[in-house]
């Protein structure tokens, strides 16, 4: 069974998205922040990561860059799911790219909360097949 890692500090998000993931026929794994998220990724590579941005401890921005600059992990598709407007996220990525002198590919998809649950399900199915 394909595995989906959900990284979000909001219990509502993890509850709902886990439910959606399971109903779509996948296995859901939950992490509460970037540090925990990276831990879960290293325990066993998931097939898809659904990642929030603003979280205590380690933010989603940092976790995303860690994933995308790690050779064995960078192919895992990532859906960003955040209440932050996509425009702000992509602008911050550009600034970080310039700062680090390395460019990181864009995520598979970016969904702004509050989204329609169906939208996320469609997207997951399209990515995971």
């Amino acid at each position, binding site marked *: 069974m394909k595995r989906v890692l959900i990284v979000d*500090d*909001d*219990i*509502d*998000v993890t*509850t*709902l998205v886990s*439910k959606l993931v399971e*109903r779509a026929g996948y296995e859901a794994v939950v992490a*509460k922040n970037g540090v925990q998220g990276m831990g879960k990724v290293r325990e066993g590579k998931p097939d898809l990561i659904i990642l929030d941005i*603003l979280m*205590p*401890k380690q933010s989603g921005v940092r976790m995303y860059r860690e994933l995308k600059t790690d050779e064995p992990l960078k192919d895992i598709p990532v859906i960003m799911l955040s*209440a*932050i407007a996509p425009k702000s996220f992509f602008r911050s990525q550009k600034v970080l790219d310039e700062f680090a002198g390395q460019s990181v590919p864009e995520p598979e998809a970016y969904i*702004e*909360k*509050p*989204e*329609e*649950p169906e939208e996320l399900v469609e997207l997951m199915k399209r990515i995971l097949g």
Partner: protein
Amino acid sequence: MTNKSKILIVDDDADTVELLTKRLRAEGYYTSEAYDGEQALRQVGEYQPDLIILDIKMPKIDGYEVCRRLKGSEDTKLIPIIMLTVKRKIPDKVKGLDVGADDYMPKPFDHRELSHRVRYWTAVKMEVEERVREIKRLEQELIKSERLAAIGQTVASLAHYIKNILFGLKGGVYLVNVASKENETDSLKTGREMIERNIGRISDLVLDLLEYSRERELEYENCFPNEIADEVCGLMEARAKEYGVEIIKDFDPSMREVLLDPRGIHRCLLNLVSNAIDACLFDSNKEKKWVVQVRTILQNDGTVRFEVSDNGCGMDEEVKKKLFTNFFSTKEGRGTGLGLLITQKVVQEHGGTITVDSQPGKGSTFTIRLPCTDVSTPGAMAKESHES
């Protein structure tokens, strides 16, 4: 001429003053006069001239000293000063310019030269005033735009927070719909809980926002800090017990009756104790025996200190830095992120401070220090009123 300039003529020689007055009035200027340095300084304050024509040799305070004082003061330094020099002596001119005079004119003076210099310097004064006004206007604008930026940031954080609540509500409704279509009781329960939780989040948010935005005057009363702390511990007892957290009270027996806003401080302590219990809940080390300690201390200098410490999850530097910012919460969607902000506001209104000491995995201590008036010993009050 619409904008008539005011010129102050200062000379101990009445003839020179009269001559200058006639000449300048004939050209459409307003004039006033002073016959010595002291009078000149007084007149500057009263008359607010746009230009000063100033003689050097005068009784009491001489022209150099008048010039030095006017140019050294923020209020008068922009008024141009033309010094009158008796002879065409170079050292006089140099000294005049040294003390800040803008120009000099030899006596006896040529009428056309006088007219020309006065016109030039009054025009300069108008230009300078215009610039000063412009700078002031820009400053005002900057203050306004900074305030708008602060409001904009708050609104953006608020919008972000509400989006998260909306997400919870939408998700809850979705689950309830799915459940009713497919007769799935499990989803029905989860969905309903989600909706209820988010309704709770909205009411918490509204209450906190009101509390934070309200211009509440502190209501000072004589009260016992230990009683307030005891009341708060009593209120939180049940919740603490439910989660297996022990509340330990350690109140200073020498604590006296003091003057502060008991309701405000009650709210602060309630926030801190509630946070401390949460910190234990979020601790991943489930082997630990969780303890929240509430201490009161009366310092020698009369400061009343409240300490709320826990041995819960603690905070790292990143979290500590954001503690007192809008809508920042680590409580996985349960906190509005305004509690500590409200606490800080009340403490600061008392003229006090709030500090935090924390180590990840070990726990946190929040300390409130309030400078308090001791009302229990009448001697202290009597002494104070005697002194004033």
